[in-house]
């Protein structure tokens, strides 16, 4: 079992090395199969580990294995260590399973691209990094995986590096993530100071820090900073929409299903430390709630198909943050799983549409594609219903698990419940707005001209992973049913004890209310976008300031620009002009020119006249004779 876990970790890494070394001596499709195949190997190994763990008693389900001591400094020893317990296996299955499906889809999507090999290598690198992150047995190795997923994200966002917007987006993502990494590292330093170790058992043992002490608050704050940056929550969220510059499978894998959920995983893994600083855990929940609303509102006015889905991702991760913020770790992870299914599905369906319209992403140019692309239309509906949390689709069960936990968590819980309920309304509204605009109504002239379809609209290579994800989006939610069973909570319990969910009347109220709001959202979307209607236009004219704020994404980008970029660039200009130039560059230039002048003067001694040289010799001899007399 341990061997299987190590193989699962290193299979994608081996694929990266193989692809890099083989270079152009293997065909492009072989490269794609290598990458996807390695993900499949990881998935199979993860299943093996899962099955073995199932057979054990819940208390004994924690194993760890160290390959070698990676870092040794004084008393601090950090090993290349993996930890196999319910939480890591849960994440491994999601990462490798959904990763395999998306990698297989990408073989079809990126077919024919000029730099296809580099793409598959980076994808495999990402899968390896994410697996490292979830399998790590100590915080430093987790940080290593954390940084590497950031790197893979950067590499894949500006994959089409000839586009200036893509390069800028990659930089933005990396820099914002770096901020989170910095706070994360500071938290690790504090922990090392307190415990002298970074292994999970040592760090999570009781008595490390006192409940509510400053140290606890700082550590939790540092961890939260990292999680917020990685998961694109307010206030470090502005990089995610820009990250849509990368190819669609990248958006599906990294910015929907796996990397952005790493923050949730981190909080679940270090729940002991968060529970020692309840204020910060509440802060996590609040940030999640704010993000749910903010992202939901912005998504209402987006015109790029991928950006709508990106803001939807942001919003759904807000739900997960609400869950872990209130201590309902099982629910948060359950939603992580179902979200991976239906969000990847939505992105991949959007990718089929984009491919069919020759890389057009503006939904104002799309319309009426439902009749022309039936398969895509159907899977998109499955994904949309799941996202909007309509039973019996998976999203319903996971979202209601979270709302049920929120309803049971006191005043803050009810505030966040309200945010979640409004969020459910907004989610349904913008999701079905997207569906109706793209797939219903009349076909736009642009679409008529540019549409080109293959079998299953995108070819078989892209269709079968999408189909599997559609099935999972339908059945995946039945792992945890209210008034029935909660398998996910039970599974995660040994690692992170979940808070109890509401029962009885409260639960009924919560479920019915959120379902009603979701259905209301769908109906409103149908009224405004499903039929020809001018209500959106009239609303925009009535409150133009609201429309403008939403379109400018609540002016976050402008604020950050003013607060960080402007001062930094002014500072740089000032330093160049007043310090670097006069203090360093000018003296160097003067040094050079003065040396040149001196050498010019010296070279004038070489007149070329032999007699003058001879005279110099004779004069020197005369002088030396005098010196000889005087000295001896």
């Amino acid at each position, binding site marked *: 079992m341990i061997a299987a876990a190590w193989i699962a970790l290193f299979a994608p890494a081996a694929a990266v090395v193989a692809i890099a070394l083989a270079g152009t001596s293997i065909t492009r499709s072989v490269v794609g199969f290598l990458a996807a195949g390695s993900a499949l190997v990881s998935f199979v190994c993860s299943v093996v580990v899962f099955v073995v763990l199932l057979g054990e008693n819940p208390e004994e389900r924690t194993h760890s294995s160290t390959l070698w001591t990676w870092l040794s400094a004084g008393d601090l020893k950090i090993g290349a260590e993996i930890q196999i317990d319910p939480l890591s296996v849960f994440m491994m299955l999601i990462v490798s399973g959904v990763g395999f499906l998306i990698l297989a889809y990408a073989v079809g999507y990126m077919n024919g691209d000029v730099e296809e090999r580099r793409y598959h290598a980076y994808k495999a690198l990402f899968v390896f990094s994410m697996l490292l992150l979830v399998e790590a047995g100590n915080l430093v190795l987790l940080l290593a995986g954390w940084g590497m997923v950031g790197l893979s994200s950067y590499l894949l966002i500006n994959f089409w590096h000839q586009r200036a917007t893509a390069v800028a987006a990659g930089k933005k993502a990396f820099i914002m993530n770096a901020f989170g990494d910095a706070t994360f590292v500071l938290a690790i330093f504090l922990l090392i100071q307190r415990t002298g170790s970074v292994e999970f058992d040592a760090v999570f043992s009781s008595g490390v820090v006192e409940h509510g002490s400053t140290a606890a608050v700082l550590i939790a704050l540092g961890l939260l900073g990292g999680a917020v940056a990685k998961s694109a929550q307010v206030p470090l969220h502005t990089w995610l929409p820009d990250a849509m510059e990368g190819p669609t499978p990248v958006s599906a894998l990294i910015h929907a299903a796996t990397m952005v959920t790493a923050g949730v995983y981190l909080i679940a893994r270090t729940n002991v430390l968060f529970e020692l600083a309840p204020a910060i855990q509440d802060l996590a929940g609040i940030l999640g709630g704010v993000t749910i609303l903010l992202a939901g509102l912005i998504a209402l006015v987006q015109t790029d198909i991928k950006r709508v889905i990106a803001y939807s991702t942001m919003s759904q991760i807000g739900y997960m943050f609400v869950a872990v913020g209130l201590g309902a770790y099982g629910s948060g992870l359950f939603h992580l799983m179902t979200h991976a299914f239906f969000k990847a599905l939505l992105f991949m369906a959007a990718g089929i549409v984009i491919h069919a319209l020759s890389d057009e992403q503006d939904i104002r140019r799309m319309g009426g594609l439902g009749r022309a692309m039936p398969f895509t239309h159907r899977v998109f509906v499955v994904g949309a219903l799941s996202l909007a949390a309509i039973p019996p689709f998976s999203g319903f069960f996971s979202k209601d698990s979270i709302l049920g936990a929120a309803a049971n968590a006191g005043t803050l819980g009810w505030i966040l419940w309200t945010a979640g309920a409004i969020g459910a309304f907004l989610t349904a509204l913008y999701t079905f707005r997207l569906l109706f605009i793209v797939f219903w109504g009349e076909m736009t002239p642009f679409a008529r001209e540019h549409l080109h379809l293959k079998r299953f609209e995108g070819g078989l290579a892209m269709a079968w992973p999408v189909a599997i994800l559609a099935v999972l989006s339908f059945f995946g939610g039945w792992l945890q049913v209210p008034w029935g069973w909660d398998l996910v909570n039970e599974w995660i319990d040994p690692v992170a004890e979940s808070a109890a969910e509401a029962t009885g009347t409260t639960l009924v109220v919560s479920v019915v209310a959120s379902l009603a709001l979701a259905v209301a959202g769908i109906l409103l979307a149908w009224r405004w976008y499903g039929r020809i209607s001018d209500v959106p236009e009239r609303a925009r004219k009535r409150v133009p300031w609201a429309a403008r704020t939403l379109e400018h994404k609540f002016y976050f980008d402008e604020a950050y620009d003013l607060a960080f970029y402007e001062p930094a660039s002014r500072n740089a200009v000032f330093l160049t002009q007043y310090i670097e130039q006069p203090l360093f560059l000018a003296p160097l230039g003067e040094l050079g020119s003065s040396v040149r002048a001196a050498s010019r003067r010296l*070279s*004038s*001694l*070489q*007149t*070329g*006249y*032999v*007699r003058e040289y*001879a*005279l110099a010799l*004779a004069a020197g001899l005369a002088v030396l004779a005098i010196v000889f007399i005087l000295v001896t």
Partner: protein
Amino acid sequence: MPGPGVAAYLILSVILFATGAFGVLIRRSPLIVLLALEIMLNAGNLALIAFARQTGTGSGQIFALTVMVVAAAEAVVGLGLIVAVSRRHVALDVDKLTTLRG
């Protein structure tokens, strides 16, 4: 030893050396410069022989003979240079041969 002492020979050699040096420094024809150079070498030879007589060893004479050989060789090469220069129709004037100017 009959006649003036070794010191007189040495003073003679010094004056001859100075004359040769003066000639090297002041003449513009490379031929004359070479001749003046020969004079300087001979002055050195005279000093060597004088000291050999003073100490009574024969090494000074050996040294003087070697100097003679070297001076002859140098005269050969110098004259060859002068011939080559004149063959290229360049003026035989030391002040005009300035291509080594820095």
